[in-house]
Every structure is written in structure tokens, then in C-alpha cells.
């Protein structure tokens, strides 16, 4: 793929940003995250364009996962702003961002182990009248209709990801790859606008990696915007455009993998870091 003329590498000292080709779904401006003297993320500004899969790569300790956590609201930003879909979400806790369509997954397995696969999906479903104390007290007659509708939705999703047979299995009994798929399906129940995937290929059997990548492509084709933090560079190359590179808390480059591979300092940072 040709390098976009606007894909200018962000130099460490300049801190400039790429001119957006369309209104960015997510804008981070000057985001920093300090904790106990460590500068995990330092003055990072990126745009995530809608309908694309953006990659976020970098050596270990670059701050990628921390930055993703700040975007999602799991960790508060020490400074900077995050604008999602036109709204400033910087001060919003994670659960509010999720309700607005900014959803993340986790690098470590985070399935609800003692709930079944279907329950895992059902938990994520919003708009369930029974999902409040009052609703619960009013009984099944009150929320049964919502529940049945959402069960059907969940089953469609399970079918699409070919896990219908596992519907009633405890999520904790699944393999790593299956847990990852459950996490993705769970996120999809929220009808997200932007999905933040934190190293979705880690801990997954190599044979499943391609499968997950295919699902990501299909989701993008359906209109979902995705930001992936990953080490699996083959997958990044296949899926992502653009790719953002971080090292030591800063953004040091952006572009396609081909373009980035030609940037000496990026190769150095990755190999050295």
C-alpha cells in the first residue's frame, strides 16, 4: 500500500500530529501518564480514524498497554485530553466510556470464569431492564422480554464465531484462544464504536491467531473501528493501516508497516528496546 502523504512521523521533539483525512473517532492530545515517578506515557497525541484498524506497536515497556488503559479509562490520565466521538471523555470512568461505545479488551484472560459463555455475553448486553435492583425485584415478568431478546442476539454472535456448542460451558474451562473470542464477543454485545484490543494474540495458540485476524477484518468491514496493541507484527502488517509506533512513552512514528520498516530510527528503537 502506498504511503500516505500525510503520514508524517512524529519526531520525539516536535510532537506534531498527522493531519486527519476525516473526522477522527478518537483523538488523544498530549496524553501523559505518570505513576510513582515513572513516565509510562509522555505527551502522546494520536488520531484514530473511523472504519479502520489502527495498530499500536513498540518494544516492551514502550507504554502501549498503559496508553490503551488510559484511553479506555481503566487508568486516569495524568494530563492531556481524550475526545471520543466528539465528546471529552478524559474525566469519565471506564464504565461510562464503555456505555458510549469505547470498549476495551484485556491482555490477560479476563473472562468471567464461573459464568457460562452465554452468561458472559449476556452480562455485557446493555438495555436490559432487569439490570438494576428495582428491575430485579420486579421479577422475570418485568425483564423477561428483554432477556429473551438479548439471548437471541447473543446466540447469533456465538454462531458467527462458531462457539454455539460452548454456550453452557463455564468460561473458565475454555482454551486461551476461546477465551479471547469470548472477550471479543462480549465487547461486541455492547455495539461498540471503537474497540481497543490489548494484545489479542497473546497467550493464543498460533493456529487461532489467523482466525482472530479474520474476525477483525470482518468486523472492520462491518464498520467497526479497531485499535490493536500487538507484538505479532505479521498480523499488524496484515490488518493495520495506519500503524503507530511507541517507544519509552512517546510516539516515534506512524505509517504503514512498509513505510515504518524504512525508518531507521524506528527499526533501531524496536530492536534496541
Amino acid at each position, binding site marked *: 500500500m502506498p504511503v500516505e502523504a500525510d503520514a508524517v512521523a512524529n519526531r520525539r521533539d516536535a510532537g506534531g500530529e498527522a493531519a486527519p483525512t476525516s473526522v477522527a473517532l478518537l483523538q488523544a492530545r498530549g496524553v501523559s501518564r505518570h505513576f510513582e515517578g515513572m513516565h509510562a506515557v509522555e505527551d502522546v497525541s494520536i488520531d484514530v480514524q473511523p472504519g479502520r484498524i489502527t495498530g499500536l506497536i513498540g518494544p516492551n515497556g514502550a507504554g502501549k498497554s498503559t496508553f490503551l488503559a488510559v484511553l*479506555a479509562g*481503566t487508568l486516569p490520565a495524568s494530563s492531556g485530553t481524550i475526545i471520543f466521538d466528539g465528546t471529552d471523555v478524559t474525566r469519565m*470512568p*471506564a*464504565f461510562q466510556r*464503555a*456505555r458510549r461505545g469505547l*470498549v*476495551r*479488551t*484485556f491482555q490477560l484472560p*479476563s*473472562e*468471567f*470464569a*464461573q*459464568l*457460562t459463555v*452465554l*452468561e*458472559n455475553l*449476556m*452480562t*455485557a448486553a*446493555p438495555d*436490559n431492564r*432487569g*439490570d*438494576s*435492583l428495582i*428491575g*430485579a*425485584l420486579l*421479577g*422475570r415478568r418485568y*425483564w423477561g422480554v*428483554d*432477556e429473551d431478546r438479548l*439471548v*437471541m442476539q447473543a*446466540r*447469533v454472535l456465538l*454462531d*458467527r*464465531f*462458531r462457539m454455539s456448542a460452548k*454456550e*453452557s460451558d*463455564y468460561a473458565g474451562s475454555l482454551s486461551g484462544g476461546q477465551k479471547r473470542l469470548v*472477550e471479543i464477543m*462480549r*465487547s461486541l454485545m*455492547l455495539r461498540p464504536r471503537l474497540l481497543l484490543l490489548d494484545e489479542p494474540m497473546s497467550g493464543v495458540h498460533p493456529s487461532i491467531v489467523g*482466525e482472530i485476524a*479474520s*474476525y477483525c*477484518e*470482518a468486523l472492520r*468491514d462491518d464498520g467497526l473501528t479497531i485499535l490493536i496493541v500487538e507484538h505479532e507484527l505479521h498480523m499488524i502488517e496484515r490488518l493495520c493501516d495506519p500503524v503507530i509506533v511507541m517507544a519509552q512513552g512517546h510516539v516515534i512514528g506512524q505509517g504503514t508497516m512498509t513505510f515504518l520498516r524504512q525508518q531507521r530510527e524506528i527499526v533501531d528503537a524496536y530492536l534496541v528496546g
Partner: protein
Amino acid sequence: MTYYLTTVLVYAGVDALACLAISLQFGVSGIVNFSFIIFQAAGAYTAGVLSMPPDTANGGFQTYILGLNLPFPLPWIGATVVGALLAPPIGLVVLRRLRSDYQAIAMLVLSVIATLVVTNTPPFLDGAAGLALVPQPLANLLDPSSAGYEWAYAAATVVLAAIVFVIAQRIINSPYGRSLRAMRENELAANALGKNSVALKMSVFVVGGAIAGLSGAILVGFITTWAPSTWLYPETLILFAAVIVGGRGNNYGAVLGALLVPVGFEEATRYIPPFGPPGLIPAFEWVCIGGLILGFLWFRPRGVIPERRRVFRVAAAKQPEEERGAG
């Protein structure tokens, strides 16, 4: 004999209520409320000072606040409300992002502080002596010493326990209950899926507090006294042992635990002939409770009745398969 049976029933009902509350908080939602006994005590004291005459009455040997002489069922309602009202301040203090064992210990210490403060502030709730001569519900209309009254009291306790059981069932089997369980499994992931875990925890805390307050009111109306020695922190541990033994995360397990541990245990030791120096049997009881906890946590952590797997019934009409090129 009547008195014995009705006493067992009332204690069974009260313990069942307490275990249901703890099960909701601990088994379902993963909140370790080691300050539980405060809520039950608050309910008992509230029912006491609402139903008792002003403290100058009865020879004035007690000092306590209020003393409004309210008729039944107002004291019990008041107790339930106070139990619910205590939840936000205590919850706000401890239900933050904290290591779970720190949280648990902080709450345990809170209940110890509460005991100490009440004991050392006599004008509040009559200090170490506690409340006595608490009027029994409807004592002005019925004769509390009659067998009929005893049975009615026991029946009322059981009915209330059954009502709370139904409420607890509704909670657990609802989408709200599912969110609670998800929060228990992984709070961070639940938050990332749109669940406000702080609000969820607080709501469970309030519900549990209300139930605990009611249980205290029922108990004090029956035994007519209430002193700090009744609500020392090991009482909370007995209830936790009950929930662990009976089965976590489900109401049947909670009730079974209540019947086995606080009730069953007390009754079983009643039939052991007194042996050894006085106080040996209660000590023996505590050793057994400790042993029960350790034994169950080692061999059968899920308890006698484990949490059941939820299976959704198969849909009547299956969705038509959609062909997808990818995936």
C-alpha cells in the same frame, strides 16, 4: 418444650436472614463485609430504642437515646431503614479500590471499634449493660408469655425469612444478579463492559444492611435484651462459616448453612453432657467452627450446595444461519 421449639425457629429465621444477606454480599458479589454484625446490632438497638419507653421508666436503671414507645411494626421498619442507612457511610469508607484483605480487615476493625464506642459511651445505648426489658411486639394487645404468642412470633419470623428468600432469589436470578456475579469474577472487566461496580457494590451493601437490620429487630423483640457482648466480631465469623459450609453464591446454600452452623451447632452442643471445667464446651464449639471453616475451605470450598450452572432454555425458533465469507 414449646419454648424450646419456638426459640429454635426464631433463631433459625434470624440466622437465615443474616446468612442470606451475607451470601448476597459475599457469595454473589464478592464483598467481604466483616462489619456485618454492626448492621444487625444497629437494627436491634433501633428497634429497642424505638419501642422502649423513655429511659426514666422502669426505675430508670438504663440510659439510652430516644425511647419513643412506638407500636409494632414501626420499630421493625425503623430497624430495617437504619440498617440500610448505615450502608452508604460504611460502604464509602471501605468499598474503594483496595486490596481485598485490607478491606476485610478494615471492616473487621470497624466492628470492633463500634463495640468499643458503644460500650464506653453509656448515655448512648446504655454501654456495656445494654438494653433490657425491650417491649415485645404487640405486647399491649396479646399476652407475650402465652404459647400462642410464641408460636405466632416464630411463624412471623419464618414468614419474613421466606419473603426475604424470595427477594434474594429474584435478585440472584436476574440480569442484575448476573452483573453482580460478573463483578465478583473480574471487577475490572465488568467495568470495561459498562458496569458501574461502585454503584453495584453500594446497592448490595444497602440491601444486605436492610436485611441485617430487620434480623436484629426480630431477635431483640424475642429475647428482649441486647448488649455489646451479643455482637462481638466473632459472630460475623460464624455467619461466614455458615455461608462457606452451606454453599456460596446461592440462597439455598445460605439457608442450609444457617441451619447447619449457628443453629445446628448450638443445638448439637446442647446435648453434649457437660464435661471438663466450665467454659470448655463453648471453647470446644469455637474450635469446631474454626475447624469447619478450614476443613471446608480445603476439601469443599464451594460448600454443600454449590452455585448452580445457569442454562438458558433453547429458543423455539432458531435464527437462520447467515453466510459469512470471513471468519
